[in-house]
């Protein structure tokens, strides 16, 4: 957390701490704020899950239910003390989240929120029908929390517990976002391909954020049970789950304080609508549902980013991250073994009846620059995807340093120090160039979620960011490294991708059209960089349409046409090869 964020947090904490002491704040408002705090915890989890991780969930209420029921059952039926049940409640929630998450996070696109609706309904009916949990009546006479032997019976004393947890959750979430695990989660939103290419295990990252969000919901449930002193299946219901999502959308799903803002608006609004509207329209209506539904749609139509960015825009921009230039990750060097580094042997790939890559063989030697060229649709990018494990081979083999790597999957291939860039740039547009590039060093760090939250990862982070800055400097983007990646010109984005790939410390670097969108001098600089990398011992395989660039740079060229290799050899020979000339210019008839 940089100083500006810390100041913001301290101001917020001071305000929240002062509120219950202010003489003019009635009990009623303190109670409302207790509920805002409870909802904030769930909404914070949703910010991580939906806003940051890109997974929309309507089912968070279920996890609130798990936390609430676990403690309600243990304290009433078995006489446990409430504080003792806290770890149990959280453990139950985490266990449930792991099981549900294993299925859910594998769902893609809109199937995921649909899945959350399905299990949201399932748990409501399940708990409503379990006799041991009091069926639809739920469990009542749950004991209150007590601190130093004093039971927290009124909303003013409970306030400090709730908001203490909320403040801790804000800190934890902010720390998590600014950590190695957090970056891998943030990278998910702009597609899994880029994250996988630098060795992020996407399922694991998704499951991590899923469990984290559930944990906060479970904590909220535990607090809720001891605040309300009763639990009913209503806490599970889908409508409540929808309200949590509304909070996140309203406040701004990508922002920590957006969650609190959204929770505040929804809880307060709900209370007033329930009190006020029946006065005008008669009792017996669920008027807040009408307002919330319309509000949700209106937000999507009018301000999809939520309200917080509007407010935060007035509070000023966040300061750029300080980088310690002395931080660096140790390079792992290059071996000088026998034989080629990469051997592609009779690689085939079919898409239905189309043969995109047809028994292609080639090699990339150690410290060699190989160009892969061919007209559009020749199968160059498909070949890249085969080598990096994004696509499975239909036939043939791929060997790296003498070992078979086909069938390994992108993140395990990245672990063997094969890095790549993409033809269609895949950067997280809202993250700074620096953060995007730092994702590339994912496999060179070790810090997990817990050390990220507790800030035990600072030394490693210092090294990662020092390294990222060094690589950015190398590709010539040092003066714009704090800008959001989405604000860069296309050519610069390509360079940023190269810097990200270099952060992996690769033995083999695959560049997909690196020079597209670059000006002449920038191309020269890029060619110089690639030559320097080769001289250090790195091997480079590149796809490029700029023939001058390819011919002056590469040691060896492989030409594809209609999926098949039509020529291979030194640049000078390729330029004279009749088959190549025919493929590019057509046959002289």
């Amino acid at each position, binding site marked *: 957390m940089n100083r500006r964020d810390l100041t913001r947090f301290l101001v917020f904490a001071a305000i929240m701490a002062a509120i219950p002491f202010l003489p003019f704040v009635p009990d009623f408002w303190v109670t409302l704020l207790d509920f805002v705090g409870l909802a904030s915890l769930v909404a914070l989890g949703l910010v991580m899950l939906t806003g940051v991780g890109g997974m*929309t969930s*309507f089912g968070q209420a279920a996890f609130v239910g798990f936390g609430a029921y676990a403690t309600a059952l243990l304290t009433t039926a078995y006489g446990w003390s409430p504080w003792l049940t806290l770890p149990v409640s959280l453990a139950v929630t985490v266990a449930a989240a792991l099981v549900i998450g294993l*299925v859910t996070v*594998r*769902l*893609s*696109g*809109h*199937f*995921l*929120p*649909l*899945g959350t*609706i*399905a*299990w949201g*309904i*399932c748990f409501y*009916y*399940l708990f409503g*029908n379990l006799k041991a949990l009091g069926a639809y009546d739920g469990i009542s006479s749950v004991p209150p929390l007590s601190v130093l032997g004093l039971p927290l019976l009124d909303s003013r004393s409970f306030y400090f517990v709730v908001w203490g947890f909320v403040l801790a959750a804000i800190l934890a979430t902010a720390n998590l976002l600014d950590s190695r695990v957090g970056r891998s989660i943030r990278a998910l939103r702009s*597609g*899994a*391909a880029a994250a996988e290419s630098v060795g992020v295990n996407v399922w694991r990252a998704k499951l991590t954020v899923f469990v984290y969000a559930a944990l906060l919901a479970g904590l909220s449930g535990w607090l809720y049970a001891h605040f309300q002193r009763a639990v009913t299946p209503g806490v599970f219901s889908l*409508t409540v789950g*929808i309200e949590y*999502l*509304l909070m996140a*959308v309203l406040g701004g799903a990508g922002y920590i304080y957006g969650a609190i803002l959204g929770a505040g608006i929804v809880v307060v609004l709900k209370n007033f609508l329930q009190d006020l509207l029946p006065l005008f*329209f008669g009792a*017996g*209506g*669920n*008027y*807040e*549902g*009408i*307002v*919330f*539904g*319309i*509000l*949700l*749609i209106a937000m*999507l*139509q009018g301000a*999809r980013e939520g309200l917080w960015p509007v407010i935060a825009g007035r509070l000023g921009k966040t300061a750029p991250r300080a980088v310690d230039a002395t931080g660096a990750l140790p390079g792992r060097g290059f071996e000088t073994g026998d034989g080629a580094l990469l051997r592609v042997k009779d690689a085939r790939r079919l898409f239905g009846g189309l043969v995109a890559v047809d028994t292609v063989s080639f090699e990339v030697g150690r410290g060699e620059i190989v160009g892969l060229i061919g007209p559009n649709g020749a199968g160059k990018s498909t070949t890249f995807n085969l080598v990096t494990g994004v696509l499975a081979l239909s036939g043939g083999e791929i060997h790296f340093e003498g070992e078979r790597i086909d069938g390994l999957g992108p993140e395990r291939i990245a672990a063997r120090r094969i890095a790549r860039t993409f033809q269609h740039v895949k950067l997280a547009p809202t993250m700074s160039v620096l953060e995007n590039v730092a994702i590339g060093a994912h496999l060179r760090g070790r810090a997990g979620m817990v050390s990220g939250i507790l800030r035990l990862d600072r030394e490693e982070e210092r090294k990662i960011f020092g390294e990222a800055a060094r690589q950015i400097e190398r590709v010539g983007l040092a003066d714009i490294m704090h800008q959001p990646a989405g604000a860069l010109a296309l050519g610069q984005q390509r360079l940023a991708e190269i810097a990200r790939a270099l952060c992996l410390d690769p033995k083999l670097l695959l560049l997909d059209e690196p020079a597209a969108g670059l000006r002449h001098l920038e191309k020269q600089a890029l060619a110089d960089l690639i030559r320097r990398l080769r001289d250090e011992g790195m091997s480079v395989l590149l796809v490029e349409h700029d023939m001058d660039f390819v011919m002056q740079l590469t040691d060896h060229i492989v030409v594809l046409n209609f999926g098949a290799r039509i020529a291979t050899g030194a640049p000078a020979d390729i330029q004279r090869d009749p088959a190549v000339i025919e493929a590019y210019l057509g046959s002289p008839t």
Partner: protein
Amino acid sequence: MDFTIALFLIQDGIINGAIYALLAVALVLVFAVTRVILIPQGEFVTFAGLSLAAMETGSVPGAVWLLLVLAAMSAVMDAGAALRERSPAKAVRLAAWNLAPAIAIAAAVLVLVPLQLGLAVNIVLCAALIVPMGPYLYRVAFQPLADASVLVLLIASVGAHLALTALGLVLFGAEGYRTSPVVSGSFQIGPLFVTGQSLLVVGATLALLAGLALFFGRTLIGKALKASAINRRGARLVGIPTMLSGRIAFAMAAAIGVVSAVLVAPLTTLYYDSGFIIGLKGFVAAIIGGLGAYPAAVAAALSVGLLEAFSSFWASAFKEVIVFASILPVLLWRSLTSTHGDEED
């Protein structure tokens, strides 16, 4: 369980399955044309069923006011858009186009319903009342989001469901209603006791499904809808307005809701919030069928009906749990087999 009970459960399953099939087809239709996953589909059923029940007692259903409000909202939105283009004449015209049918329908309902002219007239009035809500709902909630991702549309759809269910409580009250059957009488086939209404359910469902197949295969509008479903931009380029196809799709979904209501309201008591669960089961079927294929959705709907019937016999308290849990493995299988999940949204 003996043979008779099994037969009875199968009959029950088929009747429910037929209704779910209708709703599943509506969901597939709307999703294909507009990419909206229409969670409020069930609300069309309850609104139609409860309106019909109100008309039977000669009282004006509250849905009239909803229709007028929706019409007014779309009039304001359309006129507003026209005014931003600085064409006040167009604004007036669009407002009139939006308001006139709603006012005419509302007037007809207000005048004719108290006369209690019988079931046939009531069904027509109910259809006139509910079907236009589809296009109005599309205009108000979804048209401004037409270019958004499936995910955003889904969240909006959930919002619409939330608002409409809550409105249902205001408009129709918390009490449940059942309408009188369209076809009365019943007869015995072997050990089975079959009501005329249940035969009508199956017959009408089959007829409607056949009608839809003809509509998409043979008519210009049907083909145009199919075209916008397959490729929105392409359809727009050859002159099929996506806005119009969205409204038509929603009108058809609402019409299917009305038909389902006429069929199901005599068989089961409808409450203001029943639509959600009924709709969601159609939705489970649509998902199992892949949100794309009509025959698959119909087959899946029958399985959902049967699964529900048999689980209500073996574990009646947990029948909803079983039905909704059945969607999870299917979703998983769908996501693992669909190759382009990430790029599309």
